[in-house]
């Protein structure tokens, strides 16, 4: 198992290098340059000489690949560069933003699991019942309605009409950062984000649970007089969880990607909103820094899912040793 994890980590490093290279090249291909932004003022009146001078200062006049190698070398030393916009080190821009994003994505993943898995089990236990149809319809709705739309509806109902929850932000005031205030502010963005994942996880749970419940080992357990609750959860669900893990693993990038939009709408001070402002500001070094972190979160998340596979299924655990 340890050997397997090391192998997976090795692959993750290669993928990671690929991602950063690709994003680096794509950014340098986009029109506009940070130099123009730094010189400032009306674009038509900027003197090209001045822009070229700033570009030279930043090292942007060199070939893309040379720039990338230089950037990568610095990253390996722990230096993510400085923000072109605020002149602060990139790492200082990102670290305070990482926590809010992780709070939002992790809680919404847990919430969507807590909603989707039990509903999926119930649907599979009584397939084609009224309950099954209702939960399928809701799942379909949650998956197909765009995230931003759900967010706006939630804000309209709970913040504007009922005035039960705050419209946006993470705390009531920046001076008073207590957990109660955090939870109240977290509810709406978390709900919006989790509703999107509920559908996929629910359908997968239902499908694999339906298959598991038709397994011969379920019949064996029943024939031994094992209680129905144990038959369904201990034998059925344990066996059905593996495909569910796959879906969660596959959803990781979407959960984090979806967070970008959700964070914008709810002014959640996470990586997503930092990313949007740095893209519009052509703040290359910050964009690259965020790319590194998001890629790392997704890759590490996938390795964790992989380890969970082994924990859930002894057959996989064995084939890996």
């Amino acid at each position, binding site marked *: 198992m340890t050997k397997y994890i090391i192998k997976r980590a090795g692959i993750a490093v290669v993928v990671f290098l690929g991602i950063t290279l690709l994003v680096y090249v794509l950014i340098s291909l986009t029109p506009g340059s940070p130099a123009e932004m730094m010189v400032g003022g009306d674009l038509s009146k900027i003197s090209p000489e001045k822009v070229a001078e700033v570009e030279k200062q930043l090292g942007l006049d060199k070939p893309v690949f040379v720039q990338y190698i230089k950037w990568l070398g610095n990253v390996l030393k722990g230096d993510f560069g400085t923000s072109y916009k605020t002149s602060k080190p990139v790492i200082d821009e990102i670290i305070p933003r990482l926590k809010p994003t992780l709070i939002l994505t992790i809680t919404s993943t847990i919430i969507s699991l807590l909603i989707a898995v039990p509903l999926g089990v119930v649907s599979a236990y009584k397939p084609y019942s009224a309950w099954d149809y209702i939960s399928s319809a809701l799942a379909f709705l949650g998956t197909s309605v765009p995230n931003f739309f759900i967010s706006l509806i939630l804000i309209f109902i709970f913040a504007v009409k009922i005035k039960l929850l705050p419209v946006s932000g993470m705390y009531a005031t920046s001076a008073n950062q207590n957990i109660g205030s955090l939870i109240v502010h977290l509810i709406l963005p978390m709900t919006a984000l989790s509703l999107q994942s509920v559908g996929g996880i629910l359908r997968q749970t239902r499908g694999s649970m339906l298959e598991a419940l038709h397994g*011969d080992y379920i*019949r064996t357990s029943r024939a031994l007089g094992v209680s129905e609750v144990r038959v369904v959860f*201990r034998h059925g669900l344990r066996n059905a969880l593996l495909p569910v893990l796959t879906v969660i693993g596959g959803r990781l990038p979407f959960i984090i990607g979806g967070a970008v939009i959700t964070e914008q709408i709810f002014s959640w001070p996470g990586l997503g909103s930092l990313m949007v402002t740095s893209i519009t500001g052509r703040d290359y070094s910050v964009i690259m820094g965020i790319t590194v972190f998001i890629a790392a979160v997704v890759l590490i998340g996938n390795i964790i899912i992989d380890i969970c596979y082994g924990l859930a*299924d*002894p*057959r996989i655990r064995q084939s890996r040793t």
Partner: protein
Amino acid sequence: MAEDLLKVSDLVIQFKTKKGTLTAVDHVNFTVKKGEILGLVGESGCGKSVTSMQILGLNPKENTQVPEGEILFEGRDLLKLTQKELRAVRGEEISMIFQDSLTGLDPVIPIGKILVEAIRAHHKEISKKDAWNKGVKVLESVGIPSPEKRMHEYAHQLSGGMRQRVMIGLALLNDTKLVIADEPTTALDVTIQAQILDLLKKRQEEKENSVILITHDMGVVAEMTDRIAVMYAGMIVELASTRDIFTDAKHPYTQGLLKAIPKLDQPDNEKLYIIEGTVPPLGQRGDGCPFANRCEYATERCRNERPEPHTDSNGHMVRCFRAEEQDKEV
């Protein structure tokens, strides 16, 4: 004469499908006496598994209906039990051994935990540790070497024969009065088959419980059983002592089954005997004898009228007009 442990009378089992209601088991009658091994023989789809599964109420509830019949176990009608009462019977009074032990054992739970769960499903008073120790003893008693080690292993780590031994161990855990063995050796190779049958027989002699042995292997029933019920297309067409079935089979289907057993002294150039044709599918069985389309003696009457069970003075039951007439002539 030993007492009846199980008495199945006029059992009808139907499945609701999109094509309508299909009758899989049609007025089946048989008894299992205390300490007896009854063989239930027939080809795939004849209703032998469906019948045995119904005894424990294991047919899928959503589409199974039992419009007629009784399954009396020690005088109690199992068909009328609530789910909770039925659960108390399963594994405690009647247990079942299934055919495929690879898919029949939960792949993600170690053998030991499956055993502990099965013991504690009926005996909450036994601690987990005691149940574990009992599990080790049970594995030992069904001939599994180094049982302590096996307790920690998973189904896929055991060989087919070992897994089937575990299945038998599970069925024998709580000293049930009736064991239903549904093709317990079909998935195994021949040498292992003999070992498993030996084990079943030995345990049955020790505990003096009753066994329903379901199989399509005439060789197996010959060695194992006291009486044999032959099923065809949802009906029991012949029921008699094992000796009578092998020496004096009356139904043309049973005769065909016996003729189809390959013999060692058969000339090399002689083809194996087969019963021509196939079982009529569910829903197309008509009013006549279900075997009429394959029977060499079939008459007009056989095609239009269903033979009723006819029992001779020796208790040899057969459902066949021809056999009935021959009996009268004697």
